[in-house]
């Protein structure tokens, strides 16, 4: 757990608390099956699992975009269902996996949209809003993108701007859906370093949904493994990325090893598919 999280007062309630959350899609698939999950303030949590395991649905439910059938979700002690849209957006920001962008919007317009939940009455951006947006862009190393068109950015650049927009939302929790799915190795690291920076230096609570077990292992404090809408394993990377845990989910053709040194501190396990 990071410095900030450990320093948070014990009396403060969890950043996210989900209890017995269930959801069945109209096609009969049980996407979430009595999922219970607590995320502490300042924690870096990665949700992993195979395709269709319900991890993206869980993220959408936590961000309030997906209505649930049963159970309850609360953000910072407040029931999610009782929050109105701007209140919710001030508590939790979502970085989508991909975004359709119409031509004509610049990067700075786009990051300013992150300030929407903070606007009042006439919905005009103040100087403060513009300053925050510029600062957030600088923070992700995209200060010089300001006037560029959003639909002309490369995948890695676009991901950075999306993260800047989530930062501009000034929510304590940031949820990310597959942030590196379309990126090359270099940019995968760039993006994860940014997320890690938000976690460690800006004190944000991070929940990231990913297929990439090894990046999750290097950066996250805690991994949650999902299968068929249920959480099957929950713990530190060392405890979740074990042969006996992963074999039941991904099959037995796996190779294991360890990164000797990681930014998150100490040694962390890695796992790769291995066709023997």
């Amino acid at each position, binding site marked *: 757990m990071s410095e900030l999280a450990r320093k948070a007062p014990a009396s403060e309630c969890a950043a996210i608390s989900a209890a017995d959350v269930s959801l069945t899609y109209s096609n009969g698939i049980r996407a979430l099956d009595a999922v219970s999950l607590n995320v502490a303030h300042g924690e870096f949590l990665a949700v992993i699992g195979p395709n269709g395991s319900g991890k993206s649905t869980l993220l959408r439910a936590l961000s309030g975009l997906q209505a649930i059938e049963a159970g309850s979700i609360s953000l910072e002690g407040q029931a999610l269902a009782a929050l*109105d*849209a701007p209140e919710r957006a*001030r508590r939790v*920001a979502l970085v989508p996996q991909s975004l359709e962008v119409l031509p*004509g*919007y610049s990067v700075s317009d786009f990051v300013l949209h992150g300030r*929407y939940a903070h606007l009042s009455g006439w919905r005009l951006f103040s100087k403060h809003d513009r300053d925050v947006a510029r600062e957030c862009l600088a923070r992700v190393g995209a200060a010089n993108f300001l006037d560029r068109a959003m639909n002309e950015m490369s995948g890695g650049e676009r991901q950075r701007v999306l993260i800047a927009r989530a930062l501009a939302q000034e929510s304590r929790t940031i949820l990310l859906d597959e942030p590196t799915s379309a990126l090359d190795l270099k940019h995968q690291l760039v993006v994860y370093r940014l997320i890690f920076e938000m976690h460690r230096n800006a004190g944000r609570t991070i929940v990231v949904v990913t297929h990439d077990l090894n990046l999750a292992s290097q950066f996250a404090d805690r991994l949650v493994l999902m299968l068929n809408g249920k959480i099957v394993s929950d713990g530190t990377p060392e405890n979740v990325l074990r042969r006996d845990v992963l074999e039941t989910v991904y099959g037995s053709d796996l190779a294991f090893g360890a990164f000797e040194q990681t930014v998150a501190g100490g040694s962390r396990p890695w796992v790769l598919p291995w066709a023997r």
Partner: protein
Amino acid sequence: MNSIRTRTLWIGIVLLLLLPLLVLLSVGYSETGQQGILAAARFLFGSSPDADREILKLRLMRSLCAIGVGGSLALAGAMSQGLFRNPLAAPDLLGIGSGAMLGAVIGIAFLGGYGPDFWMSRPVVGASNDGMYTLAIIPVLSFAGALATALTIYRLATRGGRISIPALLLTGLAVNALLGAILAALQVLLLQDWQVSRAILAWGFGTLDDRTPFHLGVVWGGAALALLSIPFVGLELDLLAGGEEDAAALGADPVKIKMLVLACVALATASSVAVSGQIAFVGLLVPHVMRMIVGPHHRSLLPISFLAGAVLLLSVLVLQHGLCPVLSDAVAFDHVVLKSGEEISGRIVSETPEKIAIIRSTTGERVAVPRFEAASVSKHQGRLALFFWRVSSFQPGVLTSLLGAPFFLYLLLRQRRALEG
């Protein structure tokens, strides 16, 4: 966006609005005591003779209605293009205009007329017992028709929060065909009532003549409400550009925005249709061109589209009432019949109490005729002059369609790849 360029555009567009307004106050079928712009100037400063004032009031009414109608149509277009995230999604192409038409036609059938005779029989609109309240049935039903169509279209074309553009356009096509059939059936049923069917025909093509304060109230009421919504939907439409889910994640309420925008689109469309029938393609063309100039930000795109729509419709009127009669006059022949029976066709170049000088159109030679020899002097309209004269009496809706339909085709061709994909 470049702020100097934007400011220039705003100033330019306001000037563009004033110019045709002055022209339209100066020209028309009825002669004023003083000619043209002078009469308009005297009217604006409140010193016109009474007879002139009445004529100029009618001209002003026509222009103000045109501003309201053109502006509302363009605003509705910009809003629905923003909501559906596609420049092809104009209210008339989606059938929202037809929905408004159907509602209004039912209202007209119920009231028993909407043409000039109808207004003549009600000299004091609003004062008599069948005044405003009964008349209001036309805009109200028109709004109901537009809103019902807008909601239906949205529902049919949306699947899982995503809008399929081919589905949207095809749904619009189907809805347009259905509403067109119902409209046609209604008109056939109403054929016996000569006054009603003539009123529907004359109004349906988009007329702006003989408009009353009632019309002005309807179109400007609708326009004002739609314009007032801009601070509450402008930025929200920008957020929706990234999809409904993304807008929701940023703290907007997509359902509320959609309903508000659809209501405004229906309101602006219905209030202009109730006043002047269907004037096609303004809602498609204007916002598209404005987007290319000011960019996609709805905060500026919506109001500037309103102004540009007003300018477009006023310009069409100037073309009709200002330019066409002048052109018609310019290409007409002067026709002098002499007492001897000889006829001279050509152009009169000078006229004095003693002599008329004509350039013969056949040979180009200059002839001077003593005035006492001339039996009659008249204008003779050739084919071209007649054509210009006819165009000047077209309904503006006919002209906007002639302009707009090719533009629509051009847009379709440009979007072909997106539509096929």
